[in-house]
């Protein structure tokens, strides 16, 4: 037996269903999750052209309630959370005092004094611990709701139609980055118009006991218009094409939001202090005077796929590093996100390549994202 044998992985409420569908499972942040059901390329293209159904129950939900819930989140996170209207959601980050990114988050304001913070599975405990610690002195409760929710996502152009057939909720009135409570297929759900695929779509937070019923209803309603179950593999290529950062790849504690090109999420103008304000003020000034490496897109001319950690090269020198790379089903070529020195970051910058296991392969520098849906 291996000395570093992993602890038993956690299983979502849909585990038996995934196995009955023949999913290839993979360990993800301690969870046993579906990687793919059939071909990840077909799943990817289904989301781009029709619809895909995902189990995202590994994501970490944390509820923050109380008279000072907004004040606590304004202190704990870098965004202007008090300014979010009830029913809306905001993409934000939680940073350390030194400005390093602990996680990127979506915060839903469910009611005037109730928020749901959704953290990445790999960081959920870290975010929970930080919020609990930062809540001291605030009249607010931080509640671990990771076990209270299963999360299903339906993504792709057919998803509004599929969901409409199962709910009376006002989906037309539900804007991108908004969420409202409703009932889907008889199941109480928080319906959010969010996702991580670059497509229109919805995320449905439900009780774990209802997850299988909801999955089945979505499958029954969606299959005739091309909905297929989708795993984490295509979720990664979808978000990569959409230029969306992934924690552990484009984001880490070693980077501030300004280093990641996401300085806009830091709201210095909000009232009061927040964790990281001083360090982030310095990071903003530093980014102004000495531009940090820039997150860019790279498109291969050849067929070899760049992977995270591969050096980006120009004139035989290392000028950056790949953070994520994969063959793009939509473009039909390998693509990557990479941090590169500002001097080589302009779209079309000449002579840029990626060192792929010793061979310098030519790559075109492009602005992100690679793919933007037509609205």
């Amino acid at each position: 037996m291996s000395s570093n044998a992993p602890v038993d992985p956690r299983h979502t409420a849909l585990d038996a269903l995934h196995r009955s569908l023949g999913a290839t499972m993979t360990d993800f942040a301690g969870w046993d999750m579906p990687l793919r059901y059939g071909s990840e390329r077909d799943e990817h293209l289904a989301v781009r052209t029709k619809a895909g159904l995902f189990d995202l129950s590994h994501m970490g939900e944390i509820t923050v309630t109380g008279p000072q819930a907004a004040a606590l989140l304004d202190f704990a996170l870098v965004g202007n959370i008090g300014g979010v209207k009830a029913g809306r959601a905001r993409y934000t980050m939680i940073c350390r005092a030194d400005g390093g990114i602990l996680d990127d988050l979506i915060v839903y304001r469910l009611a005037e004094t109730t928020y749901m913070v959704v953290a990445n599975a790999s960081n959920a405990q870290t975010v929970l611990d930080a919020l609990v610690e930062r809540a001291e002195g605030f009249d607010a409760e931080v509640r671990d709701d990771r076990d209270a929710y299963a999360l299903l996502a339906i993504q792709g152009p057919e998803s509004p139609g599929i969901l409409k057939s199962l709910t009376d909720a006002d989906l037309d009135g539900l804007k991108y980055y908004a969420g409202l409570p409703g009932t889907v297929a008889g199941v109480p759900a928080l319906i959010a118009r969010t996702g991580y695929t670059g497509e229109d779509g919805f995320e449905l937070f439900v009780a774990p006991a209802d997850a299988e019923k909801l999955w089945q209803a979505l499958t029954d309603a969606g299959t005739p218009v091309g909905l297929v179950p989708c795993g984490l593999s295509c979720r990664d290529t979808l978000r990569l094409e959409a230029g969306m950062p992934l924690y552990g790849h484009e984001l880490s504690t070693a980077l501030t939001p300004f280093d990641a090109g996401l300085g806009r999420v830091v709201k210095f103008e909000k009232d009061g202090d927040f964790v990281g304000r001083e360090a982030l003020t310095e990071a903003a000034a530093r980014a102004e005077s000495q531009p940090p490496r820039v997150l860019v897109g790279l498109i291969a001319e050849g067929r070899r796929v760049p992977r995270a950690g591969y050096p980006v090269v120009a004139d035989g020198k290392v000028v950056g590093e790949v953070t994520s790379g994969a063959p793009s089903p939509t473009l039909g070529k390998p693509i990557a996100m990479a941090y590169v020195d500002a001097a080589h970051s302009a779209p079309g910058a000449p002579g840029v390549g990626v060192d792929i296991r010793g061979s310098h392969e030519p790559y075109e520098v492009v602005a992100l994202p690679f793919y933007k849906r037509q609205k």
Partner: protein
Amino acid sequence: MSNPQQLRYSKEHEWLSGAEDGVSTVGITEHAANALGDVVYVQLPEVGSAVTAGETCGELESTKSVSDLYSPVSGEITEINQDVVDDPALVNTAPFEGGWLFKVRVAEEPKDLLSADEYTEFSGS
């Protein structure tokens, strides 16, 4: 899935056909192709080059990973499958047929190649 009876198999999940005029065909098994996911790039040894049993002779790149390709036997490469270079998905769709990888004039064969039944038991599929 079923592993064709007439082939022999390595523990690195390659298959090897019987030799015609001393030349055998090599591919990877359906089990291996499924484990890799969608194959998007294959790098094969050059015709005329020598390969050694159990040693790396190329690469198979899939959506999520890159894997070394091993040769199940020692010998000289006589032909590579240009169709699979042009369309790597053949490895997934027809691993035992159109997705073959290379032909090799066998100089030496290891003793531990598996029969179809042995490989089925070894790979659990």
